[in-house]
């Protein structure tokens, strides 16, 4: 069976991905239940309803208090991109950290960009362990980007180097 999240090969009877923990069976209850906020009644519409049903009765303006809204998901404002509230911790690997690419970029590309990539990769796992899913997503994006910067920079440098070698070789054919 192939994991739909990280495309790792897993056992066919697995309940969740061995590698990233992605559940294979839909859970019965949604992971994060966000109660829909009820429409806030405005003062004027409230009064209109009251006047329609009881034309003689008027509420004094000072006595009106809006009905208390049920507690909304308090993290919705802070976590707009995935809507996943912080919890104790998220399973390592549920957000890709691009670790292999960061290691390869650090060890094979000789550029400081590889170090940046691996620091971001470490941030992904640190934030997942701390339950900060969206922070991990942001770091994951940066880890991927800096790995590519590292590979791209090294590619450009090495192509230029081989071009110079080639030209040097043509100018001095006795060298090789």
């Amino acid at each position, binding site marked *: 069976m192939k994991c739909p999240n990280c495309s790792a*090969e897993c056992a066919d009877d697995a309940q969740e991905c061995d590698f990233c923990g992605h559940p294979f069976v839909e859970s019965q209850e949604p992971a994060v239940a966000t109660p829909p906020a009820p429409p806030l009644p405005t003062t004027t519409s409230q009064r209109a309803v009251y006047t329609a049903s009881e034309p003689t009765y008027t509420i004094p303006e000072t006595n009106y208090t809006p009905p208390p809204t049920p507690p909304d998901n308090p993290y919705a404002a802070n976590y707009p991109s995935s809507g996943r509230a912080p919890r104790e911790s998220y399973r390592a690997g549920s957000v890709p950290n691009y670790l292999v690419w960061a*290691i390869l970029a650090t060890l094979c590309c*000789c550029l400081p960009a590889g170090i940046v990539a691996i620091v971001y990769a470490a941030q992904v796992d640190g934030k997942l362990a701390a339950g900060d899913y969206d922070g991990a997503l942001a770091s994951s994006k940066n880890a991927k980007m800096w790995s590519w910067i590292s590979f791209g920079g090294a590619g450009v440098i090495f192509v230029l180097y081989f071009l110079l070698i080639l030209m040097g070789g043509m100018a001095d054919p006795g060298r090789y």
Partner: protein
Amino acid sequence: MATPKVVIPGLVIAFFLVALLLLQFDPNQAGNPLPPCPFHWLTGLYCPGCGATRALHALLHGDPGKALSMNPVFVLALPIVALLFAAKWLKLPPVLLRATKFFSDARPWAWLLIGFAVLRNLPWYPFSLLAPG
């Protein structure tokens, strides 16, 4: 990152290209066409990847001791990186899968590589062992 259909052939081709170059040319000889580390060339400092070309050359010529002396972290990380790649695309036995999980936390790697980058530039024994050569 990219799809396995692109990455796997790319990695295989890159590996054989590098192996071919290293069997053809000796990075220890002056005037070899293999690229030096641009970071070392610019700054005179060793980066975490310095010595990787010579280490790979030594490995391909059956000299693991010399390979370790050139870049120990690179040599030791090679099989782990191969394992992490394999876990992405192949069905691995549970033992290897546990090893994969053990190695896939990036935080120890970051400490290791940054520490290695700093320590191998210290000129004193035993840190001088970490410098290539």
